């Protein structure tokens, strides 16, 4: 078995939209030639602001979106080259937990039906008693009282619903789980519970996670390595959580994350501007207009991320 469970090889994804009623089509690149290995048994974190392409990346990982260019390979198989039946077989090994537990569970399903739905999709039949046992087992794994199986989603709290989402992702005993902001809509106390649960499940079941988040503090705590994305491209891959950051954008993210310690208040540097529109991508480094270190070279020449390096950073003036 290879050490890499999932591989992005020069993956890009475009979306196009109509500009006005009579206008022509315009195209935006949500993910731009991304190359990334997701190592088996580890937690790979992807962090970035809204619009950086992290949710598109999550969907590309499971081939819920087709790449415009490049290849996404799971266990060495290019997902785009698979027949629908073969893709479905692969998907048993890769599951997803969505951000919003309020909208990702069918309100007309009981919790048991929701947890058992993956089996139906994959044509696994169960007797009523088997289904009951199995659902109870996965609910317990996710830290829920199996008696909740008879209830409907609206009778559960946000944290409980997210646990149902996790139980459902576990049902097919996958190898890889893509977690797309699984705690973004939860209270901090519940967020910490869910992260503890995910950490426990990973050790017990030998899972691999691709963990998407906008919270750098959380990513640093939970992940083994961290991919920082900006405007569709990976700008830095931190090989470990204590590796010093080298990209000025990563530093900006670090400086913006408030610590629960009034003795260590952050000095918010007035970073001007926001993420540029992906429709009007600047020619050089996408971060240059907001970067205090930007030189004329940054506006002209796009920095490349050399994924072969131990600590890749796409910057002309990396920090030491």
């Amino acid at each position, binding site marked *: 078995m290879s050490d890499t469970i999932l591989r992005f090889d020069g993956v890009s994804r475009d979306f196009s939209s109509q500009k006005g009623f009579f206008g022509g089509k315009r195209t935006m690149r949500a993910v731009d030639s991304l190359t990334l290995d997701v190592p088996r048994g580890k937690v790979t974190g992807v962090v970035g602001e809204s619009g950086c392409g992290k949710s598109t990346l999550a969907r590309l990982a499971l081939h819920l979106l087709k790449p415009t260019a490049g290849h996404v390979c799971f266990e060495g198989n290019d997902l785009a080259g698979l027949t629908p039946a073969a893709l479905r077989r692969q998907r048993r090994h890769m599951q997803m937990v969505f951000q919003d537990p309020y909208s990702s569970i069918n309100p007309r399903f009981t919790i048991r039906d929701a947890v058992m739905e993956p089996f139906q999709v994959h044509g696994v039949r169960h007797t009523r008693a088997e289904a009951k046992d199995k659902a109870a087992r996965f609910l317990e794994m996710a830290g829920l009282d199996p008696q909740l199986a008879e209830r409907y989603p609206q009778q559960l709290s946000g944290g409980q619903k997210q646990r149902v989402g996790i139980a459902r992702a576990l049902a097919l005993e996958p190898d890889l789980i893509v977690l797309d902001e699984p705690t973004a809509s939860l209270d901090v106390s519940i967020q*910490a519970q869910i992260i503890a649960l995910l950490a426990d499940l990973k050790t017990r079941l030998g899972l691999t996670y691709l963990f998407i988040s906008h919270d750098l503090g959380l990513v*640093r705590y939970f992940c083994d390595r961290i991919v920082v994305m900006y405007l569709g491209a990976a700008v830095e891959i931190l090989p470990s959580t204590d590796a010093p950051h080298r990209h000025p954008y990563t530093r900006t993210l670090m400086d*913006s994350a*408030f610590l*629960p310690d009034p003795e260590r*208040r952050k000095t918010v540097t*007035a970073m001007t501007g926001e993420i540029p529109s992906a429709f009007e991508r600047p020619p050089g480094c996408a971060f240059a207009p907001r970067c205090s270190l930007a030189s004329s070279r940054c506006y002209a020449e796009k920095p490349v991320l050399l994924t072969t390096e131990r600590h890749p950073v796409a910057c002309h003036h990396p920090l030491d």
Partner: protein
Amino acid sequence: MSLLTVQDLSVAIGLLPLLDRVSFSLERGEVLGLVGESGSGKSLTAMALMGLLPLIGGRITSGRVSFDGIDLTRLPEAEYRTLRGQRIALISQNPMTSLDPILTVGAQIDQASRIHAGLSPKAARARSLDLMRQLRIPEAAAVHGHYPHQLSGGMKQRIVIAMALAGDPDLIIADEPTTALDVTIQAQIIQILCDLVAERGLALLLITHDMGVVAQACHRVSVLYAGRGAETGPVRDIFARPRHPYTKALIGCIPQEGQAPGSLVGIPGMVPAALAYPKGCRYHPRCAIAAPDCRTDVPTGSIVDASGAVAFCHHPLEAGHV
């Protein structure tokens, strides 16, 4: 005398009591953080201060709210109307829903100046542009003519802040003003709010569930749990020596730099629903050190140290308690 004093405020919606004897005070030039999980009564407190409880079928059942010497609990609606916007302004959580989608953002700030400050259309526009520049909105004149959907979330929240400032209020109540925003934008907005407090001598009631925001921005903090006060005091003291187990647990929910793997556990259980509030201390079912008296007796607030911090706990943690 404090600008705002809330003393033993209780609020009910219909027959259901939700807030139970909540107290805090706020001075000019001060930021007070009101923290707690969903369902702790933070937003309800904001509604009560704004006199908006009738909109949701609620009312103040007891207690006193005094704002600059005015008793808000007995204020007729007509007088409340002159207070809202001009003396007390509200910044709500979601800038996407607090702006009118069919008016330009400039027109909306103008409108606030015209209503609250009685300015002419021309003077209102000049004032709006001035406010927008103070809030570091680039190309203010162009943005003035934009519609909300043309702006990013952070820019929309700045417009909402500009509207709040248009009436030149003494007190701003900001209800989770950055929850819907990215971290870099959150940092900018919090900085803007803190600068306003320092420059204009405003009082800011900052409602949040994020202890990171509290540590960054607030002078004092008041922690709510299930409709009751848990602990209140100066931010530095509360973070250095949390006396209420809930405060300590809430701080512990945010991963610190270099936090050991597996050490982040959260708070077991969840905030009880208002219909199922437990007897005694409402936190006791989730509390690691709950004793028999916690299950039966409601803790009264007691001053726990020289800083004036008050904890509503039968067994406040000692310094160095793990």
